[in-house]
């Protein structure tokens, strides 16, 4: 046998150069996918509207103006808030859409975050605890899943008052099983992986294994699902508002605006059209971003690609 000193080992294959920091990599990857970039920019604008819209435009959006009743869009001689037209009370549609972004976003974000935290927590417990505990949690999820979610929302909102907080709770409950199941399935797979075994051999505690080894691997999957789910919850909220059992006037959401415009469909289509378009564009952006995340942001995928290339 030849004398192979261990110190010449790095020559066996050239290591890839040091990678730039994570945020630079993410920015570069986003730049490469122009559709996802547009989606991200659009969502950023929506978030800005949600954060600052009501503060700046609340008065404009609620001020009735009889001369602007059902004013058609694209009349650029008017104030810019009227460019998308005016509603039945002459309130500027653009301003109202911007203001309504807050409620719409808040309900969706609140519900998704709550569902994700609770669902992930329960999923980790179900995946890493004994059989009995896991069975109870899974049956509970089954009950929620078998319940028509819109109906649950209707009943609860009928019982409680349809306020933002209650809406968030109801929608969160219906979405918990998604995170719970995904998280549990991933945990069951990851806990058998060799790096978890390696940590056990070193004496790592259950807490450490769950939070340091398992959760970081599951997390990107959950964030990807959450992005998609955000779109779903937004649509559900809009449906509830549309049916008249979601948020009540004078509060506004996009779904409610579509519903309010329904009676003027034949005379003033823009009342329902613009808020609907806002919903579509936002959910579309979320879908695009979620798709991009699934392929680009998941280091496990990149890791697999790496292996696949090595095998060739």
């Amino acid at each position: 046998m030849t004398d192979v000193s261990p110190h010449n080992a790095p020559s066996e294959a050239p290591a890839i150069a040091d990678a730039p920091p994570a945020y630079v990599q993410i920015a570069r990857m986003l730049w490469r996918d122009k559709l996802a970039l547009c989606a991200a920019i659009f969502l950023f604008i929506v978030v800005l509207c949600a954060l600052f819209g009501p503060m700046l435009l609340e008065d404009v959006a609620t001020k009735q103006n009889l001369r602007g009743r059902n004013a058609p869009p694209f009349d650029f001689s008017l104030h810019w808030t009227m460019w998308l037209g005016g509603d039945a009370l002459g309130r500027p549609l653009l301003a109202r859409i911007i203001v309504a972004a807050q409620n719409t976003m808040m309900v969706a974000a609140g519900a998704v975050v709550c569902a994700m935290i609770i669902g992930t927590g329960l999923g980790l417990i179900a995946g890493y605890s004994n059989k009995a505990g896991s069975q109870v949690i899974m049956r509970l999820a089954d009950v929620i899943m078998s319940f028509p979610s819109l109906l649950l929302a209707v009943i609860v909102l009928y019982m409680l008052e349809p306020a933002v907080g209650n809406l968030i709770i109801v929608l969160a409950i219906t979405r918990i099983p998604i995170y719970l199941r995904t998280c549990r399935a991933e945990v069951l797979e990851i806990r058998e992986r060799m790096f978890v075994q390696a940590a056990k051999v070193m004496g790592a505690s259950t807490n450490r294994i769950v939070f340091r080894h398992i959760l970081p691997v599951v997390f990107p999957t959950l964030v990807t699902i959450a992005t998609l789910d955000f779109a779903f919850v937004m649509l559900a909220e809009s449906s509830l508002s549309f049916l008249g059992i979601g948020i009540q006037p004078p509060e506004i959401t996009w779904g409610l605006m579509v519903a309010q415009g329904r009676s003027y469909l034949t005379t003033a289509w823009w009342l329902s059209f613009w808020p609907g378009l806002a919903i579509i564009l936002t959910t579309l952006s979320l879908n695009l971003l979620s798709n991009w995340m699934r392929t680009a942001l998941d280091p496990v995928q990149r890791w697999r690609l790496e292996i696949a290339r090595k095998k060739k």
Partner: protein
Amino acid sequence: MNHLLQVKDLSVDFHTAQGTVHAVRGVTWHLDRGETLAILGESGSGKSVSASAIMNLIDCPPGEIVSGEILFEGRDILKMSEDERRDLNGRRIAMIFQDPLSHLNPVYTVGFQIAEMMTAHGTPKSKARERTMELLKRVGIPDYENKIDTYPHQFSGGQRQRLMIAMALAMKPDILIADEPTTALDVTVQAQILELLEELQAETGMGLLLITHDLGVVAEVADRVVVMNKGEIVESGTATQVYKAPVHPYTKKLIAAVPGEGEMAQPVGGEEPILKIEGLSKAYGAFTALDSATLTVLPRETVAIVGESGSGKSTLAKTILRLEDATGGAAFYEGRDLVTMAPAELFDLRREIQMVFQDPTQSLNPRMSVFDIISEAFVIHPEILPKSEWKSKVRELLDHVGLDASHMHRYPHQFSGGQRQRIAIARALALAPRLIICDEAVSALDVSIQAQVIQLLKRLQDELGLSYLFIAHDLPLVRDFAHRVVVMQGGRIVEQGPVREIFENPKEQYTKDLLAASPHPDPEVQAERRKARMQLEKTA
């Protein structure tokens, strides 16, 4: 002169995100009727690329055939139409692959899949079924009349490869390409499959192209061999020529790295054993994975546990480390029983016994940097080292295993397979253990890298006084490394003793079979072995 198949000056590029990779450059070889050509190379050498080009399996993009021609009976198949090439595939040139389970469609019966090879080329259905029966019988599938309508997952690994062979030979092709056909199989099964291939070649007179990384396989079956490295052919000639008188430095290095040639170790002197296992058992319901194993490991000793898949060797490691709870017996580490130990005491003992896993790609957390991976030991056992010294200690450990310490903030996927295994070893060393259990620690690595890692383990043993429990399926590897060898089969220890005794004077039939089945890289020695094996089969 016209060869049956001739690859001339073939170059293939792959366009990847990291830039263009020249998978093969200017490769030229030929294959004639009735002969066996082996393409030998390690991972990344491009040994499979020309076969993929022949079978039209290269995806373009990202692949691109830059230059060259592939002449089959004098016609360049790269210039043929898609339909013409489809007609050649399977009918004139057939191929079998490394991992038969994933290469067989899980949702169709094996009978359908074999018959489909014939119906795709115009054979009527009833005739195809008849011939499928014949083929199954020929490749040695027991109870083939019933098995024909079952699914791939209902067969064993060796049987699945036989099914692949049956499928490939259905149209009596002129050429059979076998891409690492025995790599995933146990040595005894490997010997049977290679034997079957040779018999079938003799019957049909087909040309056999064998792609492999294993010099032993080359010695067993190849007439001629082509050695590839980094996309180029570095050496070619008859198998004996290349083994006996390699010209290129790479070939020399490769042959030198083949284990099983070195001096066998002397037994370690009699001290108190560091690990003493008595009657250790593990059962899963009615299935006994480990049946009362008894063995000892001395300080500074390497004890190898050898066995084929399902022999219980990994279960043994897991029960010692309490990753699985034993169902019987005891494992004494310096007199304290690991099996019944309280968690707190076990936690302290974790420092003394560490493990290196088979696949470094999977045993390192992909989301942790090398520094995080190694220093995790100090996070878990904070009494070892104050935080201020972690960095210097990690640097020292990386240096120790022969890695560049400045790479400690990189992530595992930025390293090669061999380097990853070094990281895993550094992690095991971080706790300053006295016993390291290596579960197939080098089996996933190329031969030359294997040799380097074994060298590293040996050096660490000398410097740090470590003991190893070395679990492996590869006998030649064990021969060079172990002081003592334990042979396992079906959950039981069938034989154990000093390495010299096991290799030179095995007592049990199973040990003899195992030794006879493991191929030797020297074609002449291998020919002798084959005779011996035939003898053994006759007597058995």
